[in-house]
């Protein structure tokens, strides 16, 4: 138990404890009438609808594009594959507080007004999310494809299957089956996305139905951004009751979405009544009328019934004038299971994705070049794309000199402390928990449950009660809560990676250690951990990058400029789209320096550790 306890403390403490503490700390009164009012409130419902649409489009487009990109890379000659891999890795490694402002600058240079209409703004954020998320999906899918024996592909080719046919029949199916869990997590994550709508469109343009006394929502306001805005606006006096209630409502929505999605993908035949009940509730009970025809299609073992219910849900959305997250999740399920459809459509989709990938490559190369050029230019306001002739004019090192004069080294040091602290603590906590889970299966089951809670809860909806709790405990403006927030977000991948690494180690060594009388701690520290160093170093690196790149947690919890990590410093120069006095040149120089330092710290580290332990 002692090995598992820190993990339990971390996950429960960062998700359940703040919610409970803030409710009983005296500043919040539970008001059920307020819950009902907020549930009917237009700003909340608009945010939920936007979140659902944003989640489905981003998740599916990233998945389709990513698997196509991975397949194309897989088929390319070695040199081009390596070049593609490097570009993907570089874009993936760019922190969001660097990549999104650059994307915004490029967007403003290309489109006169990205928020001229709701559709244009929505497409802007979709494109931004695709640009940022495509690399990781491609890299994961490529790893799956490379693990596949080439004989499968070869035998299909010999049977006369074309390139696109082989992709959809073999590679796409592998990716689809292997990544279903990742897709579901990604869907939930996008529903509470904060960074992208905050940095690109500020949730705008606003919608009339989203303008209420309880909040303001627009065509790109996700649930996460909606909560973050209200946390900033309503932070005085009696507003904590309102904030807590609103936060609880969003959390309940996310939990219901997760529960429904989990049931639907595992046992669709037993999910009809759950879906029906949620839709009627979401439709404020009037929905029971328009959903009545669904009672003729309750047997979801038959796909015609599931199709019919999806159609009824679509019709009900039009009649009632709103879209529920559960309807969207049903559409995701259908698209997942019944795709691909027809050959012609498949071909069109493949070529469309290929065009998107070509666009992605162009945007990435231009963005990197633009960032480097900007770091040597003197631009403060919106920088235009330079012409070839003017690109080399008036370049200087002034921005870099300013960084050192303005104390940027302090910010780099703060980020390093956050990264190293998160990495070191994370390795200890998650390795110990994985060891406990290895020894007793009940801990593994318990850990999976905690991770599920973390997956659903860890996000902006956790931050509201966390800020309330920290304020009550005088814990604001400290690094430790940020480290814990980073660890909480890293928990799912870090724990599972450590657990599977330990499971694969040769048990002979631990058995021999037990025979020699080693204690549990000695078995863990002196035998199991050293044997798993390569994987543990990857876990350390993963958490280190998360800590180094942390942005939302410091934005909400840190107020002293001398404690700013680089993310907040860069945000202050050009990251905030509402800034009137931007300093793009200094932002770019700081961004280049940040990425360079991160690369220097993270790239040699695993090799260094592996070398040390293998020689020792």
């Amino acid at each position, binding site marked *: 138990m002692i090995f598992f306890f820190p993990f339990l403390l971390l996950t429960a403490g960062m998700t359940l404890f703040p919610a409970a503490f803030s409710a009983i700390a005296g500043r919040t009164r539970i008001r059920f009438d307020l819950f009902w009012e907020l549930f009917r409130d237009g700003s909340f419902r608009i945010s939920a609808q936007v979140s659902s649409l944003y989640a489905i489009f981003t998740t599916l487009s990233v998945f389709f594009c990513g698997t196509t990109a991975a397949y194309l890379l897989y088929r390319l000659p070695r040199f081009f594959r390596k070049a593609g891999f490097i570009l993907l890795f570089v874009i993936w490694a760019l922190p969001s507080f660097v990549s999104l402002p650059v994307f915004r600058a490029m967007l403003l240079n290309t489109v006169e*007004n990205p928020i001229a209409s709701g559709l244009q703004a929505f497409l802007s954020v979709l494109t931004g999310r695709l640009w940022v998320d495509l690399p990781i999906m491609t890299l994961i899918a490529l790893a799956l494809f490379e693990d596949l024996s080439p004989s499968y592909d070869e035998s299909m080719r010999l049977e006369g299957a074309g390139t696109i046919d082989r992709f959809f029949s073999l590679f796409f199916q592998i990716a689809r089956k292997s990544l279903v869990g990742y897709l579901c997590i990604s869907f939930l994550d996008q529903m509470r996305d904060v960074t992208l709508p905050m940095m690109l469109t500020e949730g705008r343009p*606003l*919608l009339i139905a989203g*303008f*209420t*006394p309880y909040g303001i929502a627009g065509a790109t306001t996700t649930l996460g951004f909606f909560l973050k805005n209200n946390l900033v606006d309503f932070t005085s006096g009696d507003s904590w009751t309102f904030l807590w209630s609103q936060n609880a409502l969003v959390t309940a929505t996310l939990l219901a979405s997760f529960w429904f999605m989990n049931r639907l993908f595992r046992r669709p035949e037993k999910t009809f009544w759950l879906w029906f009940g949620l839709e009627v509730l979401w439709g404020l009970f009037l929905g029971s009328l328009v959903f009545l025809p669904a009672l003729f299609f309750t047997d979801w073992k038959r796909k015609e019934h599931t199709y019919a219910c999806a159609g009824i849900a679509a019709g009900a959305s039009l009649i009632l004038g709103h879209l529920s997250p559960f309807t969207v999740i049903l559409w995701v399920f259908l698209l997942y299971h019944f795709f691909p459809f027809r050959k012609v459509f498949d071909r069109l989709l493949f070529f469309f994705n290929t065009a998107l990938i070509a666009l992605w490559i162009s945007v990435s190369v231009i963005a990197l070049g633009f960032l480097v050029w900007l770091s040597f230019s003197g631009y403060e306001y919106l920088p235009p794309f330079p012409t070839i002739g003017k690109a080399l004019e008036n370049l200087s090192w002034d921005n870099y000199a300013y960084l050192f004069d303005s104390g940027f080294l*302090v910010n780099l040091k703060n980020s390093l402390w956050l990264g190293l602290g998160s990495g070191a603590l994370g390795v200890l906590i998650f390795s110990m928990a994985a060891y406990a889970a290895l020894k007793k299966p009940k801990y593994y089951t318990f850990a999976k449950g905690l991770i599920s809670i973390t997956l659903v809860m860890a996000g902006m909806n956790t931050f509201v009660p966390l800020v309330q709790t920290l304020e009550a405990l005088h814990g604001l403006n400290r690094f430790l809560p940020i480290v814990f927030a980073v660890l909480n977000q890293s928990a799912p991948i870090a724990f599972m990676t450590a657990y599977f690494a330990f499971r694969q180690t040769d048990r002979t060594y631990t058995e021999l250690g037990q025979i020699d009388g080693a204690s549990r701690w000695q078995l863990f520290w002196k035998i199991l951990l050293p044997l798993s160093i390569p994987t543990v170093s990857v876990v350390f690196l993963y958490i280190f990058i998360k800590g180094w790149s942390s942005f939302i947690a410091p934005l909400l*919890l840190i107020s002293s400029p001398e404690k700013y990590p680089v993310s907040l410093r860069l945000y202050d120069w050009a990251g905030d789209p*509402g*800034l009137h006095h931007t300093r793009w040149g200094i932002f770019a120089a700081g961004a280049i320096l940040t990425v360079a330092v991160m690369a220097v710290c993270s790239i040699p580290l695993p090799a260094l550790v592996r070398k040390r332990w293998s020689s020792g």
Partner: protein
Amino acid sequence: MTKRAILSYFLLFISVTVGLSFTVWVSWEGEDWYRTVAKAYAETAQVRVEIVPIPALDQKLQVGMKTPDTLPDLCLIKSDYFPLVASSALPVDSGRLLGYAGRFAEIGIQTYTSGGALRAVPFYADTQVLFLQTAVFEKHQIPLPESDWTVDDLEALMTRLHACGVTPIGWGFNSPYIFQGLQEGFGQSFMPDGTIRVKTEENQGVLRRLRSWVVNGWFKDYPQRPGLIKDFSAGKVAMIPQGSYLIPNFDEMEVPYTAVPLPHPWKSVIDTKAWVVFKNEVLVYPFLSFLFDRMEELCAAHMKQSLIEGIPSTERYSEVFEKSLKNSLVQPSTIAYSEGYWTAMKACLELYLRGEGELQPLLSTAQAYIDQFQ
């Protein structure tokens, strides 16, 4: 060997720690000037002053108010941040400001008094003016307006400019910073008792008028200021109402422009700035006196209006600023304004001017939002 390398690596980063003894948060223009003055002060008084520029100061103060230990010794704020910091600010001890006691402008004293005491030291003000792109006027042979012009004259001018194929005027639709000058020029929403009433007949008239400008193609939306500056520099938009702080930027960018007072009765918003003392009064006040001694440079370089009598404001455009001050509006310093009015009117303006809603319900919702804070 590897362990030593790692340890050295750690120690190197630990050593990069800056010791701060006296912190000043600044924002807006003049960062280089503050640093120069701080450096000169350090050499004279042997007291180190750390100047920390904070671009999004309101958000930092909102988080900082929850952790008073993290507040700086001295902070430059604007009037709408005052309600946020008033309770934590130390009362101003004018006697410690050698030679400057009793010289603060009445506007500043009224704005920054709370609980019967002055809680921030008035510093300077920015004035709203109307910038005209003179190259556009010259090209189309349109005479520049007189300084005592009216909103009707402005509409006639916009008609002419529009006929020439130029966007007559532009700013962010959702900007209460610009709108409130029209609101208070044609009516009154900011009541003497500190309450705010936006659902008035006069406001409805003003909003309908602005909407007609949009429909006529006279008024273009610029959601972000950099895009507005870019188009103004390029001559794509002929007029922009903005603060006088943009003058040095236009000079640097070599934009052909001039500045005129806003047309009557459109009021010019006076955006005042003041210094709030949170701690270390013994160190802070001598520095402030030192700063005020050199303030004329800041006013000249950044087109500021000094709020301290006897310190000359900039001479350039002095007539324009004088006329603007006669028809001016000081931003309220209440929570209902900074947290309620600002957010609600941003939404109301954006939705109505884009043609997305009816005026009465929008103003009703805005009023309901504001009422939560008053």
